[in-house]
């Protein structure tokens, strides 16, 4: 008669009884799962909230039903088309309003050193169509911007030490600060600002003289549609119709409508969610590995129980059922704990992001993210636990009678046989890697990213495990050579690393991964920022001028010659607007959808130079000698994207006249000189009679910046100055915030590593207790025992930190080399990482071995 399988219910009951026997050990297992789930639910929950907010408030975020961004105001013909926007069935006219954004200098009379601001001009009677501009003191935007008044961001007041009521100078005009901007609904659609926001009315913008020829201002047309007769709603068909008209009226414009939200923002959100989810997946996988290790150790400790169960008639499948349910139960509880913590993480994350998020997301109950987190947590745990669980099949009931099992010979054949016996586990490991790729695919929504992640992560983990193994073996080798010369507490602590049941290698790999992630992000950040800072040498410009008019060019040059502190004189570069008609005979108008930056071609910024500009390097062809030759030079990145090269033919319209030019040269700009500003350079004869805007670069002694900028602003109030030091500070603060979030999430991996350590310590608790009391029996003091265990935990921490530090430095070196940035060893960060990991490991070890010190010898010895 076939044996009846153990019912799931009974299996659950046996599994539960077993769980209750070691609550401390299993609570750390639960936490290992919870850490990854918490991180994932937090990140995806926040993303879900953002997405919901973006879609629910898409009109406010856009400022209208539709918007069109252009870099020049429409001509009369285009304007006429705009007045005819409309669709059948609408109850009234389509309303439109323009907003303009540009960079400018601004100062207050008390402190005439100007700062760079992001200026926005609006028609306060119409703007915004949706949402409101929140002001303090509360007032309508129309009142606030009446006459020569402006509203400003908090940051402006702080940086200039100004207050509401102060005067501010913009271009050639004085404004009174009427209020502080607390909320600007379409800030997110308005493009990235390089300085604090200042808002004025369209009517006063013209009077500032800031919008000279060739100004870098961008303009957005906001469109509001009337509701449809009868329905009182706005139908998709009408929005689509008006959108088509808008695209036809302004062919160069970037048109958006509320239905798609903000495509760039959605895309950015998707990318950020994918990257951050994968970082969370690292923590989750580490947690799962921890659970698998704990289950492996648990089963080893339960050998007797398994043998007894088998002797009493249980089959391998029955045992598998018991421990499978146990694992799933632990995974589920861990997942639920993780969901709770994840919701807390979700609410905490916006604080970590700081000003990176320019709008307030409405955070609800992110059930989709919760299901995703819980599902991923359970699946990962199950996948990683299956290989150790399958070991129960190998337990032989004879263990009940005889603890010692004969060991086979140590030959190659025996080695092969041992691996062959584990073939199912090996096959499962391959399945785990593939499944991990699948999970990563799901989280990142990209098969390529998923598979790359799975491949790289498996490889990294394998390398870390090998490094951990090598570190442990080396230490053991050294220990065996010198052990009797070492102080005995140190020797004993070190020997404990090799205690049976200790998961030292796994702890090292997991903790090491966390340290590696955090340190690599830091080292990359430090390397890149150092590169930017170090290249700011006196030979390179540290001050750039924007929006210099042709009439001002000579005067400004003279101004620089007479100013103290100028270490490198001003170089000016002209920019003339042009339009590409065709490339190699193919009309630009037909290039839609070919990943060609069409807008860049249709309003191209051209410059002239009869010798190669400073900072540019010729990579192909030769520069012209005749200033009237029909040729041009292209930046290397343009050549790559447009698939043209030396000898290609280009049709270009300049000032209404079409020219056919031959590509004569290709150059590479170094990114630090003015030359980087222009990617299309022509001979001077073709351009110098055209209206041009000028850009300038110079080096000024940084100590003299304030007085220099004050004098320049006084003489040329409409010229915008971009000071590299200020810019760097801004870049650093943004990079800081981004890397802080990444490091924060990478911190979950460290937490997962610590949980593995804790569960490893808890699972060897009985051994440790016995050891502590034997030591006490032999006359050891409490201090001595503390020293021994502390040596063990801290050495584990130092080794894990060492493995992580080595790997982080290798990784950073490779990545920085790819970015052509030099690598320097960061001693301080490296040492802090080492000491920090040792400290964390020691603290965690002691938390997991609570009460061991206070035990009386007899109570433990009698329990045997």
């Amino acid at each position, binding site marked *: 008669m076939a044996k009846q399988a153990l019912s799931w219910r009974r299996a659950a009951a046996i599994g539960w009884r077993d769980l209750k026997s070691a609550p401390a050990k299993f609570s750390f297992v639960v936490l290992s799962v919870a850490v990854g789930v918490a991180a994932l639910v937090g990140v995806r929950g926040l993303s879900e909230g953002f997405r919901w907010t973006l879609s629910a408030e898409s009109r406010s975020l856009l400022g209208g039903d539709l918007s069109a961004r252009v870099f020049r105001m429409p001509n009369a013909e285009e304007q006429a088309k705009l007045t005819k926007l409309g669709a059948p069935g609408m109850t009234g006219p389509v309303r439109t309003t323009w907003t303009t954004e540009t960079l400018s200098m601004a100062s207050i009379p008390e402190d005439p050193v100007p700062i760079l601001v992001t200026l926005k001009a609006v028609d306060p009677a119409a703007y915004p169509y949706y949402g409101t501009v929140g002001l303090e003191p509360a007032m309508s935007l129309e009142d606030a911007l009446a006459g020569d008044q402006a509203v400003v961001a908090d940051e402006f007041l702080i940086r200039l030490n100004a207050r509401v009521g102060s005067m501010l100078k913009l271009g050639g005009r004085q404004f009174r600060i009427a209020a502080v901007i607390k909320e600007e609904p379409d800030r997110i659609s308005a493009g990235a600002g390089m300085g604090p926001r200042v808002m004025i009315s369209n009517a006063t913008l013209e009077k500032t003289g800031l919008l000279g020829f060739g100004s870098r201002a961008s303009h957005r047309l906001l469109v509001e549609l009337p509701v449809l007769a009868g329905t009182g709603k706005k139908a998709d068909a009408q929005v689509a119709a008006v959108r088509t008209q808008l695209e036809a009226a302004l062919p160069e414009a970037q048109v958006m409508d509320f239905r798609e939200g903000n495509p760039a923002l959605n895309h950015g959100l998707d990318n950020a969610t994918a990257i951050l989810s994968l970082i969370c997946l690292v923590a989750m996988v580490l947690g799962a590995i921890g659970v698998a290790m704990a289950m492996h150790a648990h089963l080893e400790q339960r050998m007797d129980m398994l043998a007894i169960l088998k002797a009493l008639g249980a089959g391998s499948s029955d045992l598998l059922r018991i421990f499978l349910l146990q694992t799933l139960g632990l995974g589920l509880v861990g997942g639920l704990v993780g969901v709770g913590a994840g919701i807390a993480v979700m609410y905490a994350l916006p604080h970590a992001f700081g000003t990176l998020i320019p709008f307030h997301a409405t955070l609800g109950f992110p059930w989709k993210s919760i299901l995703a987190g819980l599902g991923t947590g359970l699946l990962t745990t199950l996948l990683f636990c299956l290989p150790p669980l399958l070991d129960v099949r190998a337990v032989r009931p004879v263990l009940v009678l005889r603890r010692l099992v004969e060991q086979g010979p140590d030959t190659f054949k025996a080695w092969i046989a041992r691996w062959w016996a584990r073939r199912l586990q090996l096959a499962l490991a391959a399945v785990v890697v593939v499944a991990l790729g699948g999970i990563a695919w799901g989280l990142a929504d990209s098969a390529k990213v998923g598979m790359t992640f799975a491949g790289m992560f498996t490889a990294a983990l394998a390398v870390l495990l090998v490094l951990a193994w090598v570190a442990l073996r080396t230490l053991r080798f050294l220990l065996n050579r010198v*052990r*009797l010369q070492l102080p*005995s507490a140190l*020797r*004993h602590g070190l*020997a*404990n690393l*090799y*205690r*049976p049941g200790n998961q030292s290698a796994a702890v090292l790999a997991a903790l090491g991964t966390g340290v590696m992630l955090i340190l690599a992000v830091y080292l990359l950040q430090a390397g890149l920022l150092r590169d930017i800072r170090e290249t700011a040498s006196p030979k390179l410009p540290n001050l750039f001028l924007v929006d210099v008019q042709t009439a001002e060019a000579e005067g400004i040059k003279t101004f620089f010659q007479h100013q103290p502190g100028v270490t490198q004189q001003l170089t000016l570069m002209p920019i003339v607007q042009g339009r590409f008609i065709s490339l190699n005979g193919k009309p630009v108008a037909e290039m839609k959808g070919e990943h060609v930056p069409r807008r860049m071609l249709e309003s191209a910024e051209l410059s002239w130079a009869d010798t190669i500009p400073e900072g540019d390097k010729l990579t192909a062809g030769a520069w012209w000698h005749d200033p009237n030759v029909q040729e041009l030079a292209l930046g290397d990145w343009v050549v790559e994207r447009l698939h043209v090269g030396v000898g290609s033919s280009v049709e270009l319209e300049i000032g209404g006249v079409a020219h056919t030019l031959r590509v004569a040269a290709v150059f590479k700009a170094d990114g630090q000189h003015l030359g980087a500003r222009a990617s299309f350079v022509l001979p001077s004869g073709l351009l110098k009679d055209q209206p041009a805007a000028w850009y300038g670069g110079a080096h000024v002694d940084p100590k003299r910046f304030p007085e220099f900028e004050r004098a320049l602003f006084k003489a040329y109030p409409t010229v915008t100055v971009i000071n590299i030091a200020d810019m760097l500070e801004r870049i650093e603060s943004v990079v800081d915030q981004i890397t802080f979030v990444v490091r924060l999430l990478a911190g979950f991996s460290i937490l997962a590593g610590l949980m593995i350590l804790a569960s490893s310590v808890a699972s060897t608790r009985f*051994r440790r207790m*016995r*050891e502590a009391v*034997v*030591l*006490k*029996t*032999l*006359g*050891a*003091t*409490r201090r*001595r025992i503390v020293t021994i265990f502390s040596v063990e935990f801290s050495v584990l921490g130092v080794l894990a930190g060492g493995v992580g530090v080595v790997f982080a430095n290798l990784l950073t070196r490779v990545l920085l080399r790819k970015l052509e940035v030099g690598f320097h060893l960061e001693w301080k960060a490296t040492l802090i990482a080492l000491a920090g990991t040792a400290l964390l490991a020691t603290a965690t070890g002691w938390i997991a071995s609570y009460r061991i010190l206070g035990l*009386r*010898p*007899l*109570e433990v*010895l*009698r329990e*045997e």
Partner: protein
Amino acid sequence: MIEVKGVRKWIQNGARRVEILKGISLTIPAGQFVAIVGASGSGKSTLLGLLAGLDSPSEGEIWLDGVPIHNLAEAQLAQVRGSKIGFVFQSYQLIQTLTALENVLLPHELNASGSGLAKARRLLAEVGLAERMEHYPVQLSGGEQQRVALARAFVVEPPVVMADEPTGNLDSTNGKLVLDLLLDRNKRAGTTLVLVTHDPEVASRADRRIVLRDGMIVEDTLFTQPAASEENHG
């Protein structure tokens, strides 16, 4: 000399108080080999633990060479255990991560100054393990592990050795070897030996036999006066 005066030991089990020792008084002169026998649960291991300072009595006094170990602080107790008492367990209780030599060395490192290495090696050789000093406990048989435990108990030359069923887990050959080593120590160095056993044959080799039943001494027989130590007189 060990003096036990009116020692009682109970444990609280919920609302119930379980009495393990119900008033024990005895004196063990230096150099005596005492066997404590009794049925399972009679309290013999508890008594041994109290004599060794591994636990404290609920009531009564225990004096070891004039030191009241019943009311010593933990650190002082550790010192007494380390310098005056060697302990041998039924299940050996070796530290698994240390080699045989390191296990033997451990009490010396904890309690004495100078290198105990030569002495540890000599003791291991004396118990027949000269070739196995660098082995870990897991690589040794039960009898070998117990001999390591003996060497460990002797290394600081304690005046008292306590042994809890030291032959309980061993076959007769190994059991006899271990007992011979303990007795040899008792005879040669005049070490006081207090041994808990089930085995009547082991008990028959003692100078004195104390029988415990239900936490009380029901029989205390002196067979011979302790022999004078060979090391002291020879």
